[in-house]
């Protein structure tokens, strides 16, 4: 069993998807427990895999015993396992959260389908993280993206549909670009294995074809990660999706784009290439810096809670890419750490937004007056999430800010330093407005059915994430022990 773990983590949710479909067909109520147990099993498998990775360093698995570079190889190193654990942890919580929260937002007859697609999405993102084959990565990217389009449009009402359609169009274009990039790489080298590519590419670093491939990758991945000027699909998709899906998108789906970007930039093309031969990192960092500022400014302008969080996500993606783009150990650590942090904080905040909508139906920030008293636990989670987004110590948000800022000083990038520090003030502006409404303004009389907190299945994931915001902040050395070697190996001695 143990030696098949890398492939098991992908197969479990695939099997689960069909089991829950069948289970849901027998009785609708079976779909959720099957899905939940499935992800739980998968998470356990991932934990076992973590143990192996910590022992062996890199775990390789050849699919169907075909040797690389001909067969598909699954490679799990520290970066993979780190991302995998984040994704599965968040998927698990989102799944738990969905039990009650989709009741209002998705028609009951669609629940079975919801969990099936949910599991397919999980299978897709898991596949992305464990695969060592670049075409396989594309296929999994498409599986999870297709599932994401469907989930976005699964809610009631038409806005989610249109948002889902636009997301689909943008996502497919980006997939096509990635496919083109892969084609160019294959044309040049005749291999699709990432490790193999990294080995055979260096003599070709000056080739125009390689540069073309690289540009295709960058554009395609930028759309997937919603890097600033290409983020247009994101706000609508996040806003109009059911709350669970918003949480899932902002934590899991966005992370997979970021992961793919880091993988392709640093494991396929190497630091040497992206810095020396095709100096794109400088450009990416500037773009990320603009994304941070623009995302925050746009978030300030929003009156809808989920849309505000969506724009803030645009900024936060910028944080991660800025950390990656500055190409030094400290900033890289900060960027990769921020993947965890952003998942935890944004997941928490989207769940809080969902809880408000669940209880009161209010989406606008102005309507949330006095929520602090009516939903104390939900609001407490909101406070921690918001403080973390602002980067108040000792929450997780501060830790990544610390590393990013130190990295910027190390790189001598004063503008980026200013951007990092200023953005925490900007996020203070919009999160504080939210807190002010929730806590320090009195609500106008009683609202129908608007008292009491949300049911426990929704509350617990939220509080777990809020606690994680604090715990990972205080015991930040735990994720760091995984990240430090990752950052080092990605930079490869630069």
């Amino acid at each position, binding site marked *: 069993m143990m030696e098949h773990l890398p492939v098991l983590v992908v197969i479990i949710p695939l099997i689960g998807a069909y089991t829950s479909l069948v289970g849901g067909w027998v009785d609708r109520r079976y779909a959720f427990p099957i899905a939940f147990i499935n992800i739980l099993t998968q998470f356990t498998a991932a934990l076992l895999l973590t143990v192996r990775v910590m022992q062996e360093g890199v775990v390789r698995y050849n699919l169907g015993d075909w040797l690389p570079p001909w067969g598909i190889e699954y490679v799990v190193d520290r970066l993979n396992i780190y991302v995998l654990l984040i994704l599965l942890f968040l998927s698990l919580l989102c799944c738990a959260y969905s039990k009650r929260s989709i009741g209002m937002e998705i028609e009951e007859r669609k629940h079975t389908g919801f969990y099936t697609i949910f599991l397919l999405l999980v299978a897709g993102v898991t596949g992305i993280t464990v695969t060592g084959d670049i075409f396989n990565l594309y296929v999994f990217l498409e599986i999870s993206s297709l599932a994401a389009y469907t989930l976005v449009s699964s809610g009631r009402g038409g806005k989610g549909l249109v948002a889902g359609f636009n997301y689909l169009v943008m996502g497919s274009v980006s997939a096509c670009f990635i496919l083109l990039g892969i084609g160019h790489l294959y044309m040049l080298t005749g291999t699709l294995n990432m490790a193999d590519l990294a080995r055979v590419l260096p003599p070709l670093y000056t080739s125009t074809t390689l540069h073309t491939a690289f540009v295709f990758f960058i554009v395609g991945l930028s759309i997937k990660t919603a890097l600033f000027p290409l983020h247009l699909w994101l706000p609508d998709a996040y806003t109009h999706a059911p709350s669970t899906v918003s949480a899932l998108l902002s934590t899991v789906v966005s992370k997979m784009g970021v992961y793919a970007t880091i993988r392709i930039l640093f494991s396929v093309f190497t630091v040497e290439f992206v810095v020396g031969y095709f100096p794109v990192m400088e450009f990416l960092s500037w773009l990320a810096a603009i994304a941070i500022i623009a995302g925050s400014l746009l978030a300030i302008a929003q009156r809808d809670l989920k849309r505000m969080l969506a724009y803030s996500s645009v900024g936060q993606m910028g944080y991660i890419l800025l950390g990656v783009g500055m190409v030094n150990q400290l900033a890289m650590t900060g960027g990769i750490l921020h993947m965890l942090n952003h998942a935890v904080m944004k997941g928490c905040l989207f769940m809080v937004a969902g809880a408000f909508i669940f209880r009161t139906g209010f989406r606008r920030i102005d309507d949330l007056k006095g929520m602090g008293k009516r939903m104390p636990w939900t609001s407490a989670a909101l406070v921690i999430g918001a403080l973390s987004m602002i980067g*108040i110590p000792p929450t997780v948000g501060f830790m990544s800010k610390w590393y990013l800022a130190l990295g910027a*000083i*190390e790189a001598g990038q004063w503008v980026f330093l200013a951007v990092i520090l*200023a953005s925490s003030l900007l996020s*203070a502006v919009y999160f504080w407005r939210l807190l002010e409404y929730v806590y320090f303004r009195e609500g106008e009389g009683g609202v129908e059915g608007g008292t009491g907190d949300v049911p426990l299945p929704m509350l617990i994931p939220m509080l777990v994430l809020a606690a994680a915001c604090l715990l990972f902040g205080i015991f930040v050395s735990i994720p760091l022990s995984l990240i430090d070697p990752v950052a080092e190996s990605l930079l490869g001695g630069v």
Partner: protein
Amino acid sequence: MEPLESPVPFIAILVPFCAAALILLSYRRRRLIEAYSLLASILTFALVLILLPRVMEGSEVTWSVLKLLPGANLGLHVDAFGLIFALTSSSLWIVSSLYSIGYMNAHDGHNLARFYAAFAIAIASALAVAMAANLFTLFIFYEILTISTYPLVVHEGTEEAMRAGRKYLAYLLTAGVFLLLSLLFTQHLAGGNEFTSGGILAGHATDFIVRILFLTFLIGFAKAAWMPLHSWLPTAMVAPTPVSALLHAVAVVKAGAFGMMRVICYIFGLELASAAGLNMALILIASVTILVSSFFALAQDNLKRRLAYSTIGQLSYILLGVALLTPQGIAGALLHIPFHAYMKITLFFTAGCILVSTGLENISEMKGIGRRMPLTMGAFTLGAIGVCGFPPLCGFFSKLLLAEGSVEAGAIPVLLVLLSSSVLNAAYFFPIIRTAFLDDPAEELRGRKEAPVLVLIPSLATALLSLLMGLYPAFPFLELATMAVRALAGGP
């Protein structure tokens, strides 16, 4: 003597945090909340007091809480320098807990759990700032202090309070960013941020960088309310009186001034500071603040606002003292932390007493109030005399030391600033006393009596304490201050 490993400082900080949690959990039961708050304050003070004999013996108490990030530990280190501030805030927390109970009873308090919890967290942060072993720890709790005092500022929930709260945050969060920036640079330049006697920056940076860094630190410690970054403080006076009293006369603003002292003495080091000419800039800023704020104070009719401007001026005494870079000056500055705290809290408490029993906030309406409330106004008079720096109150000693320090440093203009400031202080305090005692009571005040016991007792207690400390200044603060200065100078 070897530093002593002991968890006592950590527990002293943990107690208020736990109290805050308990208070929030039992938010329905008012008496329980008050009891928790009072108990926690006594317990905290007792814990800090345990540290006192150790430090007086000359040993220092350390406790490394957690290795948070590489190169950034969360650690506590109690020396005479920090203990002065820690003792001040924790002892005053007891009286202001009592006072809060009385004040909130009289005021039909709402959201009490939030109020007391935030109060406890703020005190814990102030304590942690006092006992921080490194700049990183100081920064973390400095930020928590900012956040935890926000709910107190906007406690009333009025539109004015919200506006004040936004202003408060805008100033202090921006300051926090600058402090973070300075912290990052210190870390980058010196490779660490532990407070070390004699500084850690010497030899790591050019004079120019040091000056820039000094500027960012100064902006970072905007909590010290130096001009022109002072205007958040008078605005924050919309908060309930106990908050204005403890936080905006003691914990928050002193955290700023204290932080600045720490940084100058333990990060820059006195030699580097004088070599780079930092002291001149600080002397200039502090002197201007002292004089200008006094004039501003003269113009205020609202009593709490007048006190706020007076606080701004008095805080700059501390900055001025440290800027002199002489033993006497620093000792004076250190002494001014507790002494001003006791006197100013008395003044705020009495202002609150007047508000509770008569509802008056403006000085012009307080005609003859001293005849109706002799005890309250007696306490006020004591405090006011002390702030002006007249013997036998404690304010006299800190000012004396500051004056000696300025002579020692050969900075005669500073002496002039000190003297003229005392005159100005008298000019804005004595009209209040005259109005209160000599004018005929207004019609509306007929039948008004003394404030409720629970608010009156703390006011009297702090007034008496300021008098006592004036009579016996040696114990413990003067002792501690001399020890701190000796340690700085590198002596035994």
